[in-house]
């Protein structure tokens, strides 16, 4: 049995900082009103981020017990960062949740069974979908020609590689048209570790991150470009700290394709030959928008495309609602994830748009399913798909 000290979910180690941060909770409830998973707790307070902070404080002080129900609540969170965005006292709540989940895993009380399965898959095949490692490059199209050495590394990520290849395919096609040479590691690329960092499975995350850091070092690249919001967040926000703590080099610039396209358009390097007469609404992926503050670039791309009419959803930019898939929720709580996705699709339909566009293959997977289930009168597309269509 671990000692009381190690049982504290927000305990002394990392800890001091996050522990101080939760002490500042003002109990204002701002985090509760926008939380996409709170309504699934029957409307009761305990499922709110505010209550989870209160629980963590009480648990640390020995006034509350870790129970299976609290473990469940701590995992029922899509890491959407809506709570972080509105917090009265700037508590880095998602870091708090991740720290608590890691502690639960250390204590053998987490994660959820579906998350364990993902770990087994990634341990065996370097991706959480249990797809064959050697087929990681199957998204590549015949005209995609990586070079053995280049400054740019294309990091496809697991979802794009095995589930939703359109965005990475378009991205690489545009790179080629622009004459930007790139390397691609194929089966040597492993999961970025995002699903494992979000679900507290730090040991396996450690191995994956180490492997990708080795890869980047070996290839000697200066820039990583990716189409996935989750991968780019993780590579941008988690890798530098991980590498610093282990004395490993990590001097690369991480770029999401949204940033790259916006830059190319601004520099006049992408010209348009066709107009795309469509009314579209843009969904800000949580890990692209709130995590990386990439709100303007996708909109700038859409506005640059001739013929596009962009209409905003009621909740957009910093206030955007989640697609429901992040933080291991899609794997661990599929019904909840599906409902959150349907609610967001409904919000998109309310704008009168014909197309719901986004820039994350993970969001794309959720919405694709939701639109199909609902028989919804809206089409799904990637921003890049429209860009390519207009660029001819």
């Amino acid at each position, binding site marked *: 049995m671990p000692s009381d000290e190690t049982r504290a979910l927000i305990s002394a180690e990392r800890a001091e900082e996050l522990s101080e941060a939760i002490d500042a909770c003002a109990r*204002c409830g701002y985090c509760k009103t926008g939380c996409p998973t709170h309504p699934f707790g*029957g409307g*009761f307070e305990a499922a709110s981020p505010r209550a989870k902070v209160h629980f963590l404080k009480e648990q640390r002080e020995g006034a509350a017990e870790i129970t299976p129900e609290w473990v469940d609540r701590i995992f029922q969170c899509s890491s959407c960062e809506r709570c972080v965005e509105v917090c009265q*006292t700037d508590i880095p709540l998602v870091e708090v949740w991740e720290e608590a989940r890691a502690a639960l895993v250390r204590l053998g009380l987490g994660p959820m069974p579906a998350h364990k399965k993902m770990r087994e898959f990634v341990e065996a095949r370097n991706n959480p979908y249990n797809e064959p490692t050697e087929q990681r490059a199957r998204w590549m199209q015949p005209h995609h020609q990586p070079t053995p050495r280049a400054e740019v590394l294309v990091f496809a990520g697991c979802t794009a590689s095995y589930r939703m290849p359109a965005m990475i395919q378009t991205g690489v096609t545009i790179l080629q048209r622009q004459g930007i040479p790139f390397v691609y590691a194929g089966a040597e690329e492993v999961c970025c570790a995002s699903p494992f960092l979000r679900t507290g499975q730090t040991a396996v995350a450690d191995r994956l991150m180490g492997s990708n850091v080795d890869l980047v070092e070996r290839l000697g690249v200066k820039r990583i470009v990716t189409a996935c919001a989750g991968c780019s967040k993780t590579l941008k926000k988690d890798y530098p700290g991980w590498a610093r703590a282990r004395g490993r080099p990590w001097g690369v610039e991480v770029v999401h394709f949204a940033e790259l396209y916006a830059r190319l358009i601004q520099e006049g390097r992408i010209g348009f030959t066709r107009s795309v007469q469509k009314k579209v609404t843009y969904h800000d992926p949580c890990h692209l928008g709130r995590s990386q503050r990439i709100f303007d670039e996708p909109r700038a791309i859409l506005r640059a495309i001739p013929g596009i009419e962009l209409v905003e959803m009621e909740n957009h930019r910093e206030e955007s609602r989640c697609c429901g898939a992040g933080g291991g929720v899609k794997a661990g709580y599929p019904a909840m994830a599906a409902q959150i996705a349907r609610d967001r699709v409904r919000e998109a339909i309310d704008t009168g748009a014909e197309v719901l566009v986004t820039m994350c293959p993970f969001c794309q997977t959720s919405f694709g399913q939701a639109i199909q289930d609902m028989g919804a009168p809206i089409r799904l597309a990637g921003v890049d798909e429209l860009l390519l269509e207009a660029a001819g």
Partner: protein
Amino acid sequence: MNEFRRELEAELGSAVTFDPQQTKAYDHDLGEMPSVLMAQIRPVPDAVLAARSPEQVASALRIAARHGVPVTPRGQASSGFGGAIPTRGGLLVDLTPMNAVLGIDPDAGTVDVQPGVVWNALSARLRHAQLDLCTCPTSAPASTVGGWFATGGVGIGSFRYGSIGEVVQEVDVAGLDGRIVTVRGPEMELHHQTCGTLGVVTALRLACRPALPLRSFAIQLEGADGVPALLREARERLDAYSIAFSSAAYLRMRAMAEEEKPAIDRGLLALVTVTEPPGSIPDLAGVLAVAAAVGGTVLPEEVARREWEDRFYPMRIKKLGPALLVGEFYVPAAAFAEACRRIESALSGDLVGIEATAVRGDRMAVLAYLVDPGAGLLFPLRMAKALLPMRIARRLGGSAYAPGLWLASETERCLGSEKFAAYRRKKVQMDPGGLLNPGKLQVTRPRWFPAASLSWAIGIGSTLAGPISRRIPSRRFPAPRPAR
């Protein structure tokens, strides 16, 4: 309790929980009280209803009454007066799931809502109908319409529109007999400020304002003496919508919390907000005239924009604590400067941050903040400092902001003698067994009501501890740096 449980579950199903892990999450509100005080009450409810309809509320009240079980209504528990904390366990009615906008009448300029609707969500809905809120608390991203009405408060827009009580036109109230009645006028007034001790509000009709854009101006005053003149000038020249004040000490705390430079290094910052008809140009001449009339300086637009954007974040300074001691009170505008002087002198060992809202009728609602480490044996003693500002204000014709639980002994002064007398009569008639939110507001002499004695004990204890507590400083701050 078993029979109560059986009946409640049979009637309300999964909307109700008796799970101790769930009910425990309702044992507190915004305020962090010392355990010695919390030990005097039974704050964990036995059951919680996550109410989704007026019918559910009415059924729950009827069942509770039949079994003699106390009922505590709760909105977002974003108030710190203890009003939403149970004192005798019982049934807690969580009204946040009842958050529908029932209907907007653009011609009458009114909206009907369920009590759990959150202010900012309501504002967003109203804007679709070219309407907006007359007034809202600065907790608008979370707090509920029903909760604010039941507390009675002032906030953004109160300079032009007054308190929430002046904006609500009628309410539906569920009583212990399980009936829901619609009340307005003097009858409705008895439900305003009285913490749900006469029934649970299940719907409200609110007056709205046309959704004209707002523009804020920041004016620096040398001190608080110029405030009454500023209010007069801003009303006459600008027909101002909202006026809020922040002392240099408060802005210094906030700047420290945000790791930035404070907007001013002395005096008082007045944020004057006006409505602007579309196409009109900002009345800069009017603002300059207001500033000149009070010897103030108009600050750069950027300062005003920043203050307005931060309006929902008054407690960011808690990051410095982690505890905050907050004294909250009303005072006539003419006595505001004197109140500030006396508070700062009484708490001269501390940095006291003052925030104030101007209210129609030349009143000020004031918050005096002390940042405190919140721990240690002396913390309960230091907490006595939070009551000092209210006592000073009382001597200057002011009162406590709201009675709730902890200040129940201030009920008569808060409501005024006439309303208090009418309220008492109604309470005896509606709730002779004292089941509706027991312990909140003081109805009779303390010996009959243990929780009322608690607020008396707090009053007496803090009076006695006052002289000592003032000598124990809260958080020490470094000397101020000059502003930009």
